[in-house]
């Protein structure tokens, strides 16, 4: 490693009206290293990267940014990109209907006098795809036809197509499964070895520890520490301690499992066909049950049919030719529409709260009550004051941090949006809650709170089904875990016997007859 910093940010202070987002942050990155940044949501990680990349223009902050020995005064993304600094956001900036090659050169078209040379484009695209480990993909394939994991790699290829010396990745693995994440990290190592400096922001501490050379921990807008992973022998508890400012003896709240309760909910022989490719079974003869007061997990890789199973049970909102039976308290019930499902005590909290869960432009209050508006309604008229009282109660109960209930939901942090999403379904008085990736993209502190809410719901006698791609989370929270592979239930493991290894074995079981 070279000992001259490629990037030096000195005494950066950035204020938003009413909040100091960054205070006297000093941050150094050395040439050719992978530098991890950890911190809770709202700690200031993204703000720091925005200062660096010019999204927060020069003059809107105090302090200095020195890059490659020169003082930087970036006014927008173009300025920083011209210096070889490229930032890849969590939400990918790809156009789904265009090909891989077209996306790679989007805004950077290989043209002479405005005319694109397609053979040139294709040749360069193939070379770039090779660098990011996508040698088997054809550059003419449309972005929408490849998975999120590969899309993330195309984003990196897109960055490489420009002159890039410093690559910044914001939560690159948030929507990838373990295998895809592993691949991405190995690509990052290769790029580092080719001399590109990388800054990676991630909630997944294990990953950061695995890939980063140095890690900077940020809390409340200030740098807590910068550590060298090898020399300082850093481990997860140490990072968490720095991030939350307190000892987290456990990532999961303790909970006494409720076993032996009566059966609350059961699905039998559940089969669902893919909604576009209607000859393909995505869920095949799945059966499972949940007892009163029990927390049941569903473990499965991406594409195993976990979300598809949940959504098809919840008002047939996914899939075609759905067959199978749903029982509530031993009696068969219909769940063909969302209305019926809600009436039968089922709630489904989606994995994608922005696209499917919440109305971000409406207020916190309106989002909380929309699924059970009838509870604050008399003769078709909403009693707004009653509604305020109820949403205030939910706010306190789920500890939603918001200045008041009438702000637009989009102003809240991810963790608090997720709590609103939960509140909305708690308000429907469900008996069974299906939580799909309930802690995706939220910080450690908020995760802990979500786990506590899950425990409380179970203690209140509800049945909770947790779908998650994070196995430690399932093992830490659930009383019993089903494994799903290629649409089949391949096992059911009690908490005491669950390990990441045996779950993974069951999740990858070949099920082809």
């Amino acid at each position: 490693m070279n000992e001259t910093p490629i990037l030096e940010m000195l005494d950066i202070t950035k204020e938003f009206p009413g909040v100091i987002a960054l205070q006297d942050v000093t941050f150094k990155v050395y040439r050719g290293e992978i530098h991890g940044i950890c911190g809770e949501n709202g700690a200031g990680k993204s703000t720091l990267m925005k200062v660096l990349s010019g999204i927060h223009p020069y003059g809107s902050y105090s302090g200095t940014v020195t890059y490659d020995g020169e003082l930087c005064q970036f006014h927008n993304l173009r300025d920083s990109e011209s210096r070889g600094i490229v930032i890849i956001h969590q939400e990918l900036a790809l156009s789904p209907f265009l090909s891989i090659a077209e996306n790679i050169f989007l805004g950077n078209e290989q043209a002479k006098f405005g005319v694109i040379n397609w053979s040139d484009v294709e040749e360069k695209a193939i070379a770039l795809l090779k660098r990011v480990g996508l040698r088997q993909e054809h550059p003419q394939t449309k972005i929408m036809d490849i998975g999120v994991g590969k899309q993330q790699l195309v984003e990196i290829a897109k960055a490489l197509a420009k002159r890039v010396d410093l690559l910044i990745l914001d939560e690159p693995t948030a929507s990838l499964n373990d295998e895809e994440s592993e691949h991405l990290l190995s690509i990052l190592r290769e790029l580092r070895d080719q001399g590109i400096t990388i800054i990676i922001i991630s909630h997944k501490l294990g990953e950061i520890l695995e890939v980063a050379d140095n890690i900077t921990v940020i809390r409340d807008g200030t740098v807590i520490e910068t550590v060298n992973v090898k020399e300082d022998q850093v481990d997860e508890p140490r990072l968490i301690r720095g991030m939350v400012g307190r000892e987290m003896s456990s990532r999961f709240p303790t909970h006494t499992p409720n076993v032996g309760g009566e059966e609350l909910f059961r699905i039998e022989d559940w089969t669902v066909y893919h909604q576009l490719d209607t000859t393909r079974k995505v869920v095949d003869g799945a059966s499972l049950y949940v007892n009163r007061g029990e927390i049941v997990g569903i473990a499965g890789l991406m594409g195993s049919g976990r979300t598809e199973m949940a959504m098809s049970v919840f008002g047939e909102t996914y899939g075609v030719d759905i067959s199978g039976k749903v029982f509530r308290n031993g009696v068969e019930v219909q769940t063909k529409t969302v209305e019926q499902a809600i009436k039968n005590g089922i709630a489904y909290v989606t994995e994608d709260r922005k696209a499917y869960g919440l109305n971000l432009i409406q207020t916190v209050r309106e989002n909380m009550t929309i699924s059970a508006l009838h509870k604050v309604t008399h003769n078709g008229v909403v009693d707004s004051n009653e509604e305020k009282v109820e949403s205030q109660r939910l706010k306190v109960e789920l500890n939603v941090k918001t200045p008041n209930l009438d702000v637009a939901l989009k102003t809240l942090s991810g963790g608090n949006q997720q709590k609103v999403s939960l509140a909305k379904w708690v308000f429907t008085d469900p008996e069974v809650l299906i939580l799909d990736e309930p802690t995706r993209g939220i910080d450690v502190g908020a995760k802990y709170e979500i786990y506590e809410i899950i425990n409380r719901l179970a203690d209140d006698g509800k049945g909770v089904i947790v779908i998650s791609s994070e196995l430690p989370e399932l093992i830490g929270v659930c009383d019993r875990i089903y494994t799903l592979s290629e649409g089949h239930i391949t096992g059911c493991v009690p908490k005491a016997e669950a390990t990441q290894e045996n779950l993974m074995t069951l999740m990858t079981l070949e099920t082809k007859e």
Partner: protein
Amino acid sequence: MASSLKQALGGNLRQYGIMGALALVIILFTITTGGKLLSPANVSSLIGQNAYVLIMALGMIMVIIAGHIDLSAGSVVAFVGGICGWVMYSTNWDWPWWAGVLLALALGTLIGAWHGFWIAYVRIPAFIVTLAGMLMFRGLAIVVAGFTMAPFDDEFVAIASKGSANIFPTIPFDGGQLGVIFQAVKSIDVFTLLVGVLAILALVWTQFRNRASQVKHGIEPEPLGFTVGKIVVIAFCIAFATVLLSMSAVGTPFVLVIIAVLVLVYSFVLNRTVFGRHVYAIGGNLNAAILSGINTARTNFMIFVHMGFLEAVAAIVVVSRANAANATAGQSYELDVIAACFIGGTAVTGGIGRVSGAMVGAVFMGVLNQGQSIMGVPSAWQQVVKGLVLLAAVAFDLLSKRRTKLVALAGVAERSQ
């Protein structure tokens, strides 16, 4: 106090911006027309001329909030007006005026249901369905009203041309002593003044009742000073309009009564009912609405049924005002109505919009028309001005949003929008 005032204003800043712009335009034209804009007769005709925009904007705002559009409004007005005129005019039918009105309302509702069916249940985009409706109903209008049918019964014509002063007693008053603008004023309508006073009392009562209810539910109400200030401003506007109208020849036009009732009803529907909440939910995030158990098809269907009903009301007012039914009626009305909604702050992408905004937008357009007409601006140039105002209003909306977007970019949430 200052911060809580900001908070109370905060969410509605855009709303107040439009109202401020309206006040500015009124003052501007009052000066350029030497006060003629605010003569009682002009105020009265302002309402009559723009009634169709005000009425149909109530439906259009629901349509746009839910993420749709209705291009057929003008054609439907012509067709429904044509049928309504035909049954009253034709010697074979010779229906009484009230039967014609009822038939028109039923027919409009049916047309709304027709559009709603294709949009909500067959899921054809509203743009296509109402474009088809625009062509079809214009054609059908020419079939039934290819020639001009006129005149109609006095009772029918009275809908758009008479008012409270024609029924209730008035006090003689020589307006000439107030200045040249009030020369034509011969009397003051007591009924109008009474309604104005009642409206102000109702305003005070509802505001304070809401405060009391909030206190009862343990919610901290907005600052008292803010409530009082709000009441004073609105009461002043009501009093101002009331006094002017009371001096006009017809007093309170019947059309204004119709509009007032519809505005109250549809404000209530959008703000307070489950249906209204569902309209916003569908426009804000359709997928989330479906997964929240909202029957989106039924809601969309009902939105267009309401729209059809309101188009029929507009048709009746238009035919009554012209005292004639003709297939060419209502040409490009849909554009006026859509423009009023957007000027009034309705979001182009759906999910956001208020009845009060659309009404202010409609009045804004009306004042522009009236003011320019009095000044003698040629109608060709009036259209140019209207177009520019629409562009400016939406540009203002988007620019003000973009400013907040830069800050909000801190949360990547905004990027996916």
